[in-house]
């Protein structure tokens, strides 16, 4: 199995990346949570300081690796390592954060080289707590923040999600796969 069979989950602290990977991983995720310090502690008692790792076994000894990036910007040196090769990027945004547009801008630009080559899918979490911006507003934001970057899929899926809900995470991943090849799963 090729080492680039990986899906990367990224986004700010508390957006639900760890939960999302846990929801679909075949194995208990390897998570490097630690007690949060500095500003992170305001949002989450523990946070991911290295990365999360999960696996999807495909039944023929092949597997897909699921990586979750640290949500903290000071760890962005690791993201290059995580995004060497791969199937796509799932960007999770927390709708209760003060400036989701700024978050979107930051993460899309941090991964701009990656998403020129692979599709990105956006999952918006905590919309039950804060319903705005909604997905149509995120679509408008996206057109503004992505003007100076090249995206493989300039009109990406933008879904409301709860990282704890398997169905939501399944939809994110399936949307990613169909963004790669809409012909997958065609009627025989």
């Amino acid at each position, binding site marked *: 199995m090729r080492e680039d*069979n990986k899906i990367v989950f990224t986004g700010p602290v508390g957006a639900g990346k760890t939960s999302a990977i846990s929801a*679909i991983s075949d194995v208990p995720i390897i998570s490097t949570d630690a007690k949060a310090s500095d500003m992170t502690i305001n949002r989450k008692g523990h946070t991911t300081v290295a990365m999360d790792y999960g696996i999807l*076994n495909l039944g023929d000894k092949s597997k897909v690796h699921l990586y979750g990036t640290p949500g903290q910007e000071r760890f962005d040196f690791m993201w290059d390592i995580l995004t060497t090769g791969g199937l796509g990027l799932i960007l999770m945004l927390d709708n209760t954060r003060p400036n989701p547009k700024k978050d979107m801008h930051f993460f899309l630009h941090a991964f701009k080289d990656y998403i020129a080559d692979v599709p990105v899918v956006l999952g918006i979490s905590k919309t039950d707590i804060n319903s705005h911006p909604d997905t149509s507003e995120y679509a408008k934001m996206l057109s503004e923040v992505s003007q100076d970057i090249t995206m493989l899929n300039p009109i990406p899926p933008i879904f409301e999600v709860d990282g704890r809900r398997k169905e939501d995470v399944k939809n994110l991943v399936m949307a990613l796969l169909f963004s790669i090849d809409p012909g997958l799963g065609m009627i025989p």
Partner: protein
Amino acid sequence: MNDKEKLAGAAILVGGIGLDARKEAVFRMAFRMNRKANYGFLEAGDTQAPNLAIADLDSPDGLAGAEKFRQEHPDIPLLATTIVPENFTNFVTLAKPIRMETLFPALDHLLHPSQPAPILSSQQTIEQAGKTNHLEHRATQENIPASKQMPIPPIANPSWDPDKIEYFDPEQGLLALVNRAIRDHIPVGIVDRRDGKLLWRIFPEQEKVEASVSMEEAQSIFRHGESDLILRADASFAATDNLYSMTLTEYLWQIHAIAADGRLSKKIPLNHPIKLRRWPNLTRLHPLPEALRLAAFLARSPASPALTIRMLRVQSQALFNFLAAADALELLDYSSAGTGILPEHIASAVTAVDVPKANPTKRGLLGRLLSKIAGL
């Protein structure tokens, strides 16, 4: 026709250099779409010599592979894809992201360099070896030859007969009344006058709908008794009604799909390209068959309903329901004819037999992953 047979029939064999499974899938899809060009993508184990090669210079072994290939096969054209064409001036490059409308003119030019070059952007030209060879093509209505703008050929899918399509008009009947009430911000109820039962109460200002019937019941009502539904401003639910609450967006999505009931909206021409302005928020909308795949396809590039059925081999009813629902949320862009892929151009290049069957034993990684995720 399986992949091997199709490859055997291909006039131009293409080899990949430094392409991973995902990128290979993208090129296979592109080649399947443009049957007229008759390209076939060589598998990793194939021993046939390619007629041309496509390299991904941004992959870990792409550049080395491309250089090696050029040394070993100096006579075989090589198209290098990269996000930084300016860094690879010794290759003929095509800038990522790769598009149908840029890929095929670039390949044609590689194979037939004496033919006119693709239209270039104002800043970029095709220059001779040793200089920048960056192809940047812009497809427009004008540069598609008339000969390629042919009628859609007959389709082999037995469940699909364009002459048997049924239509519905979303601007007539109950949907029109509902849409008017929403537009005018008037709270209204929808009542079945046979028994006076209030089925839905719509609160446009609050973007909310309360329902006393499930969607399955609604489907039956629309099939058998739409003419008995009326709008009433003063209707109220019975105390014994079980009420469901949903957003206005959810309601419009569902009710238009139900009203379509496998029929094509009269607003949507069968052979006119349409594109999604953005994806529906599918995790919070009533699931419709094939919605993810259809959204991915129509968000990628404009395609007519006829072409979409042909390419994806979806049931026409599934597509028409999806389009009705998406149109209700104003997600369809009808003005995309001149933006890139032209349906006539593509349609003339595609027949149903060209779309491969999903062979379970030959599913690639992506197909296996899709099956895995769907089964979780």
